[in-house]
């Protein structure tokens, strides 16, 4: 009966979203008067999950599951859900979770609501609030199946502390043969990714050319932020596609989003709207971004950004 949550890890360590979905699962379990079971794949120390509401951990340790495989992972999670008699399964909105969730939904005959931003407003009928129209609206949705699958939007519910401890047990599922094989992974290391970042620094056409990205990178480095860019910048080939944020690019749900030389087209704003605090630096006071931002500086990025870097360095030195 427990709520089952898929807590993602990377190289044995839990991702931040894992703690957020665990916190969310705890809220659902409280509403339903049940407990939280987490499932982990090749994670080392699972005790941290207890601090975020997990009562029991099913540890899967299998070398053939070392690399993420949507089909195999979905199959294993559904075996766990069936064993536990789970009625609600919680996943995140990471690229991996969004990949496996629809497969899991079919395996479990579960109705699936993605991009959910709040704990259910009711568990009977099971009603959740999710974003729609690329963050331009919210949609109240009921999940009407016996088993329910919820995808929690990143940085929406937050990580909640819960003093408790989780018991761990090994779970040895059968692993199906998958028709999709990972040949190679090309991943930036030692750099914050847009998906994981608390702060994102983004540059637009106002920066005039790819040669001027040094100050964006430096600003990001001072803040421990990820770098991103607007659509025209990626279309012009100034920056890689993976950095394009907006409606057709990556969504950003950071605590702080700093836009430099980005006018703020409606498609761009839709993609970054889920961020908590937005700062814009632009020469044009009429730029639409000023209507969407919390803080703004009207000024030349080439003068403002170096000053900002300097002030931030002073600030960091004092901390």
């Amino acid at each position: 009966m427990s709520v089952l949550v898929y807590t993602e890890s990377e190289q044995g360590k839990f991702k931040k979203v894992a703690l957020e979905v665990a916190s969310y699962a705890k809220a659902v379990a409280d509403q339903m008067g049940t407990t939280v079971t987490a499932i982990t794949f090749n994670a080392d120390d699972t005790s941290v999950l207890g601090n975020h509401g997990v009562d029991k951990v099913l540890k899967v340790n299998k070398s053939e599951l070392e690399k993420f495989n949507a089909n195999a992972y979905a199959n294993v999670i559904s075996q766990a859900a069936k064993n536990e008699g789970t009625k609600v399964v919680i996943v995140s909105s990471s690229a991996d979770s969004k990949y496996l969730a629809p497969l899991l939904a079919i395996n479990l005959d579960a109705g699936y609501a993605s991009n959910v931003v709040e704990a259910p407003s009711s568990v009977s009928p099971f009603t959740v609030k999710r974003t729609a129209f690329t963050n331009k609206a919210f949609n109240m949705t009921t999940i009407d199946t016996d088993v329910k699958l919820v995808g929690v939007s990143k940085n929406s519910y937050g990580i909640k502390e819960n003093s408790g401890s989780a018991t761990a047990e090994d779970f040895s599922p059968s692993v199906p043969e998958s028709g999709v094989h990972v040949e190679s992974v090309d991943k930036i290391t030692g750099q914050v990714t847009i998906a994981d970042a608390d702060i994102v620094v983004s540059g637009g056409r106002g920066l005039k050319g790819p040669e001027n990205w040094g100050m964006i990178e430096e600003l990001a480095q001072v803040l421990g932020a990820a770098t991103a860019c607007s659509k025209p910048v990626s279309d012009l080939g100034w920056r890689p596609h993976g950095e394009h944020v907006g409606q057709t690019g990556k969504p950003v749900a950071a605590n702080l989003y700093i836009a430099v030389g980005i006018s703020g087209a409606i498609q761009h704003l839709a993609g970054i709207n889920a961020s908590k605090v937005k700062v814009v630096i632009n020469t044009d006071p009429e730029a639409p971004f000023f209507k969407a931002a919390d803080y703004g500086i009207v000024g030349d990025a080439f003068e403002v950004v170096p000053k900002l870097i300097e002030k931030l360095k002073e600030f960091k030195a004092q901390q």
Partner: protein
Amino acid sequence: MKILVCISHVPDTTSKINFTDGDTKFDTSGVQFVINPNDEFGLTRAMWFKEKQGADVTVVNVGGPETEPTLRKALAIGADNAIRVNTEAKDGFQVAKQLANVVKEGGYDLVIAGRESIDYNGGMVPGMLAGLIGANFVNNCISLEVDGTNAKAMREIDGGKETVSTSLPLVIGGQKGLVEESDLRIPNMRGIMMARKKPLEVKEPIDAGTETASIKFEKPAPKGSVKLIDADNVEELVNLLHNEAKVI
């Protein structure tokens, strides 16, 4: 190779979003509808398979007659034929069920869908469809090559990309990267004329229930106005971000 491209009929990316009927329905008045951008990248890639590898390309939409202009546009871009499943799209599962039936009856080898529609953003139809028909599935697909029944694809992951090998039958959830923005095609007059003569089959739906239901829409609370900081006083921004916003 028979390719099915799933086309969502969505409001243009610049549309103002409003609701009607007590906030239960999207207000379509004055809204321009387009091919879902993620699907358009997929459709353009399908054109490449048609031109280079002789693939046959069918486009499909689950929806009412109002979606036909969007399907005609896809035909004008170069798809060979179109199917409209004549039922209102209610949730991801119901749409996936209808599409699964189209795939089974049509014997498609490759299904190209967008990773998500920009209206409902469910992001579940491609994966559910793959699950229902037992096909391989690659989501967030940013490149795709097919050689016989073997396929090589690239998937965007958080912080990078992953290369995978797989085989047909295959469903992909595609996005920008499958082709470049500059490769997208605007239908020309000849294409538009030809599209009028191409077959657009209206298919009656199979019996398929829903698993979720949309109850109500809400618009985000209006935002307060921006706090402007003088360009000569960036220190103030650092203070505000630390003391007021508490994000650094």
